[in-house]
């Protein structure tokens, strides 16, 4: 790191298993660099492992770049062989996923919404926090949660996800504190999501739960 610029090898970023979607190994490039102009993250995997979770974007266009190895993309049911050097461009609404076809495959995804400035969504922080919690690294997880909360100062789902993290970590006091903040931001959404969210099951017998769903 020098003033105003930074050199980085993608191999030096710790891959984080994206447990919420199937264990894909995520490289949080955007967060690691503090890049603000677009979303940019990486995915790594060995032959047969899932790389990109199946999803469609609401508004964003995405460019996937196969940096190393080989991937098989499936886009709206169509399979695409993508050796190193392949660029795959996808518009909002197209269903996409990718699987590694060779060991050591590395792809980079760049995304953004035309006509809108890029805003970090914090999802990679939550993915990292969840992975650290599962690995017993609670303080690393809390640090990732703190970064998410610093980034998303208005979105109700940021403290809500922080509450999920703490509920699963067994700290109900912290979980309810985050839920109170989430309710302050949007009580209706919290009530709707909390009803059936299994992440919050450890909190349901607590007397404070009634305030959450009230």
């Amino acid at each position: 790191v020098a003033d105003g610029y930074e050199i980085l090898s993608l191999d030096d970023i710790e891959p984080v298993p994206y447990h919420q979607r199937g264990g894909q190994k995520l490289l949080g490039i955007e967060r690691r660099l503090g890049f603000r102009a677009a979303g940019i993250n990486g995915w790594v995997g060995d032959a047969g492992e899932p790389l990109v979770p199946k999803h469609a974007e609401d508004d964003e266009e995405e460019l996937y770049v196969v940096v190393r190895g080989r991937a098989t993309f499936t886009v709206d049911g169509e399979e695409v062989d993508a050796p190193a050097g392949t660029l795959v461009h996808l518009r909002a609404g197209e269903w996409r996923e990718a699987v590694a076809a060779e060991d050591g495959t590395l792809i980079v995804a760049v995304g953004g919404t035309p006509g809108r400035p890029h805003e970090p969504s914090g999802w990679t922080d939550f993915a990292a926090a969840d992975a650290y919690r599962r690995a017993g690294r609670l303080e690393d997880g809390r640090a990732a949660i703190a970064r998410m909360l610093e980034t998303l100062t208005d979105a109700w789902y940021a403290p809500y996800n922080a509450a999920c993290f703490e509920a699963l970590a067994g700290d109900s006091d912290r979980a309810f504190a985050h839920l109170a903040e989430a309710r302050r931001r949007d009580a209706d959404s919290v009530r709707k999501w909390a009803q059936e969210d299994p992440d919050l099951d450890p909190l349901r017998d607590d007397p404070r739960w009634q305030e959450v769903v009230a």
Partner: protein
Amino acid sequence: MNRSHVDELDKIEMPDGFVWRPVRRRFDIRAFGVNAYSAREAGSQIVEEHTESQLGHEEIYLVLRGRARFTIDGTDHELGPAQLVFVRDPSLRRGAVALDADTLVLAVGGKPGEPHEVSAWEWMFAAVPHARAERWDEAIRIHEEALADRPDHPALLYNLACMEARGGRHVDALLHLRRAIELDPKYGEYARGDSDFAAIRNEPGFPV
């Protein structure tokens, strides 16, 4: 879905040796800037020396293949595959030389906090091979397409005037040169010594 391999991208060789491989333009990406670069040969420029002061972009340069020596703010860094340099500060001078003949660098950039605007230089670069081959109609068409997206962009108007002057469209050239100078008087200084305007320099109404 649209796909391409980097080796299938257009190769537009620029005067100082680097080869622009248009990615954003290939896919009509509107949300961010993204392009690839290769070099004429090992030892040639692969990323032109420049700053982003005017556009305010932060940039990531990611080496996809081969090796390159980046010079950032006067300091050299040799980068190989899957290594990147993130230039956060737009005012820093940056550039790179390819160390292998098949080196390929991907650049991603944009201005934080603002919707992405396609940079005018992309059209200017796209017109270079046509201008070099004196295909003035095509070079003019690319600039007109650019001005439909970025009206009143003085550099585009100035370049358009250059192409029109060379292509024999003297009335249009005078009109667009005058407009470029109205928007930014420095183009008057440029026009004074620009050989592209040789054919119209003595026309009545030449604005310098």
